[in-house]
């Protein structure tokens, strides 16, 4: 039996003065799913989640989180939704344990915060003031605060922005740990690799609208559609030549040569056909491989611009 979606947004619209930040966004998130909102800065991602969190009132459209309208009945979501907000802080002089203790007190059935503290590797920072924490430690504390209420849904907004690569990877492991708990996660990001690695489904936002939605793989295959085969062969090898002859092979769409590397774009079973054609000419490149298109290429194709 299919359960009701954990989150639904229908025709969500929000304008700030003359600027329309979110322009008719609809989607739903199923239980235990990691759902990504991907887009460049100003695409409307944060405004969308702020409407879901009940922090902003949409101009139009409906929002339901766990079946509840978060603006009308925030009290019914107490402790059931955890939020990690973009650009939010705690008071500088608040200590780590005090923050956890306070946030736990706001929930009906919180977890034991000492265990949360340990689980997120913050036991050693129990008595440290918020201002004294490093970027990675702050991020961990903010996630711990979102989880100490034992929520059914967590919103994570740009949690790796400004972190160094090591801290980013640690944060990804943290998100995977949240998924393991069976918690539904809404992840807002403008990092492709992050979305591709962590999300079960992604909605790509551009200019206040959702331009595509689906699993990362489906999005890539639907939008990019091509398969890229690569191999190396020496220019001086007369049997290969400029490899232009490969365009005559079935399923091949384009061939490019870059130094010793040859790139063949095609569809479907192009790899098998290219391999056969190479063998027929006596070529046995050891590095013949398929390069899968990335989400980044999908994004560029969909939005016509990069992420910055």
């Amino acid at each position, binding site marked *: 039996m299919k359960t009701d979606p954990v989150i639904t947004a229908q025709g969500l619209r929000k304008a700030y003065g003359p600027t329309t930040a979110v322009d008719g966004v609809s989607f739903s998130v199923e239980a235990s799913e990691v759902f990504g909102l991907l887009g460049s800065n100003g695409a409307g991602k944060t405004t969308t989640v702020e409407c879901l*969190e*009940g*922090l902003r009132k949409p101009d139009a459209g409906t929002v339901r989180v766990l079946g509840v309208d978060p603006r009308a009945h*925030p*009290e019914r*979501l*107490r*402790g059931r939704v*955890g*939020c990690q*907000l973009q*650009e*939010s*802080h*705690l*008071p500088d*002089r*608040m200590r780590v344990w*005090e923050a956890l*203790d*306070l*946030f736990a*007190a*706001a*929930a009906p059935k919180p977890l034991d915060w000492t265990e949360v503290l340990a689980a997120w590797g913050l036991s050693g920072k129990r008595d440290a003031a918020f201002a004294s924490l490093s970027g990675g430690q702050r991020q961990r504390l903010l996630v711990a*605060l*979102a989880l100490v*209420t034992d929520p059914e849904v967590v919103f994570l907004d740009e949690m790796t922005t400004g972190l160094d690569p090591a801290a980013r990877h640690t944060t990804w492991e943290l998100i995977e740990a949240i998924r393991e708990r069976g918690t539904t996660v809404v992840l807002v990001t403008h990092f492709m690799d992050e979305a591709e690695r962590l999300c079960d489904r992604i909605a790509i936002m551009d200019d206040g609208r959702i331009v595509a939605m689906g699993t990362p793989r489906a999005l890539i295959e639907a939008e990019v559609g091509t398969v890229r085969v690569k191999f190396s062969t020496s220019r001086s090898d007369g049997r290969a030549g400029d490899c232009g002859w490969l365009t005559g092979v079935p399923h091949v769409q384009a061939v490019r040569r870059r130094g010793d590397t040859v790139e063949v774009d095609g569809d479907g079973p192009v790899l098998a056909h290219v391999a056969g054609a190479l063998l027929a000419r006596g070529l046995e490149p050891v590095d013949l491989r398929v390069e899968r298109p990335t989400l980044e290429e999908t994004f560029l194709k969909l939005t016509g611009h990069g992420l910055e």
Partner: protein
Amino acid sequence: MRLWRKLTWEELKLFAREPLTVVFAFGFPLVMLFVLAEVFGTAPETPDPGDPIAFRGVSPLSYYVPAYVALAAAAVGLVMVPSHLAGYRERGVLRRFRAASIPASTVFGALVAVQYALALVGGLLVVVAAYLAYDFPVPEAYVGPFVAFLVTVTAFAALGILLGAVMPSPRAAQGFGVMLFFVMMMLSGAGPPVDVMSPTMQNIGKAMPLWHGVVAIQDPWLGEGWNWGELGVVLAVAAVAGALAVAAFRRRT
């Protein structure tokens, strides 16, 4: 209720860790009281015939202690709370709290409770210090001054939250609050006695809430009974500032 108690305790700790808080609310009134008592003395005023009465016919110390008790309330409301709250706004602390089901009303409730506690400690310090250091005559009445003090704290608590709501940044809130604090202090009976001020000074002083708070506390303290008129003015300040503060925060969210 449990959350409010926890947040109140947390806020108390946060304020106690703020050096400025301790200096302004607790240290400053004590230093001023010491200076004024040393300069003007602690003997009852005995003006020569024809000379003006400055200290309402009592000792300068008796005159100033109620004023500095009121000043403790003003220090908490004008110097401590506005920058604290404006900082919460600027840094997204209020949003962070709201997203965690800690509503703004609970934060304000905690801040009001903290202001009562801190002003009470500041006011008590003034009274106890005056009692220990000098031969300080005990108040003529207790209930009247105490009620007037609580009303004064309420008014400054509301003003503090209002300033925290409307000031553009914590620094602006700090600057404006400190300025208001000193102007009120100088022109409301905690600096030169009001009876020797020029009419202009008196008029400016009367336009500010601390003047009325001082008189409302002083009158029953010196045995002249409740001053319902001044008490009403302070109460009105509390009501108007409180309503404006709530409206300002509603507009921002």
